[in-house]
């Protein structure tokens, strides 16, 4: 055993996963598994008591879930580097984990291939994502943020007032109602509707309402 072994705690609710990961890691003389946790509570306890260099953390665990455990680890200012184990890449989750202080994300199906390398990279101060060390974390965070941000609402060339009219049409308002709501004449409402129909290529109010619903044309919170 190397004198400066990297001390690792494995946190996963599945015993077979823990055994599998432990055996994988034992093949690396530089790594020593010093503890295993079955849930988030145990993971936190072991992180506090054993002060491992690395915590391998499953995100979907009973009691305290992995993300919550990560949040508490960060709040507790523990020196442990956390590597998140996950079954699939959920970019939103990856972003949240990194923001909460995780240093790496490893897919479970790639654990055999990448886990040792990931642990070593993280111990050298690097981050690890998508099967390789990350050179530019800021860029990665920027990309993830962009990818997980809600898509901008398409307006199909409609003006702000026309979008407001569409919203009222989907609520079943008549031209008279709309005119009253905006303090404009019914003629103006008709003109708005003609413009809307032309821009969207629809022929009547029902088609317009369906188009608005299908193309998320309504402001968030409306039409759901």
């Amino acid at each position, binding site marked *: 055993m190397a004198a400066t072994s990297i001390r690792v705690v494995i946190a*996963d*609710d*599945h*015993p*077979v*996963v823990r*055994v*599998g*990961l432990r*055996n*994988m890691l*034992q*093949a690396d003389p530089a790594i020593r598994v010093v503890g295993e946790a079955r849930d988030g509570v145990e993971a936190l306890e072991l992180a506090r008591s054993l002060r491992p260099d690395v915590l391998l953390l*499953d995100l*979907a665990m009973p009691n305290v879930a992995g993300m919550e455990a990560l949040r508490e680890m960060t709040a507790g200012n523990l020196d442990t580097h956390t590597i998140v184990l996950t*079954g*699939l890449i959920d970019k939103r989750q990856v972003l949240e984990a990194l923001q909460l202080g995780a240093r790496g994300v490893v*897919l*479970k*199906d790639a*654990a*055999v*291939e990448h886990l040792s390398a990931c642990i070593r990279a993280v111990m050298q101060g690097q981050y690890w994502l998508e099967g390789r060390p990350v050179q530019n974390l800021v860029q990665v965070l920027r990309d993830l943020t962009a990818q997980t941000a809600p898509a901008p609402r398409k307006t199909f060339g409609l003006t702000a007032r026309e979008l407001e009219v569409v919203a009222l049409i989907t609520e079943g308002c008549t031209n008279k109602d709309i005119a009253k709501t905006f303090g404009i004449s019914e003629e103006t409402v008709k003109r708005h509707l003609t413009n809307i129909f032309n821009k969207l290529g629809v022929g009547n109010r029902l088609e317009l309402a369906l188009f608005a619903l299908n193309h998320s044309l309504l402001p968030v919170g409306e039409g759901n």
Partner: protein
Amino acid sequence: MPETETPLTTEVFDQLQQAMAADRAGFTELYREYLADAWHTLELLREAAPQGGEEVRQRAHYLRSSSLVLGAHKVARMAATLEENARASVSTDDNALDRIAEALREVQAELAERLGNGVIPADKTAA
């Protein structure tokens, strides 16, 4: 679904076997435990399926997790579908569970070929 999908991913199996080269019995035991646990989880899934919801999602996640780590990717993929459906409140039909059972039988047969019949859990030797 890739048509060439094998029940057991060779790369994962080989690397894990290499990592546990000094403990061949332990390696077989690891896969025996996986199989026993997977069959048991499948039974629990059948019990939980009529109610659906969170229990199905958790059980499916549990099955997916070990299947991924040990290279049973076909089972893992099917369990993932089950998990996603449960999350979306889509009911679990028996056919889906039958397909997982079939995939698990394939994994078991593959493991028996590689490691011998000792890898098959005692109550599944006739499966």
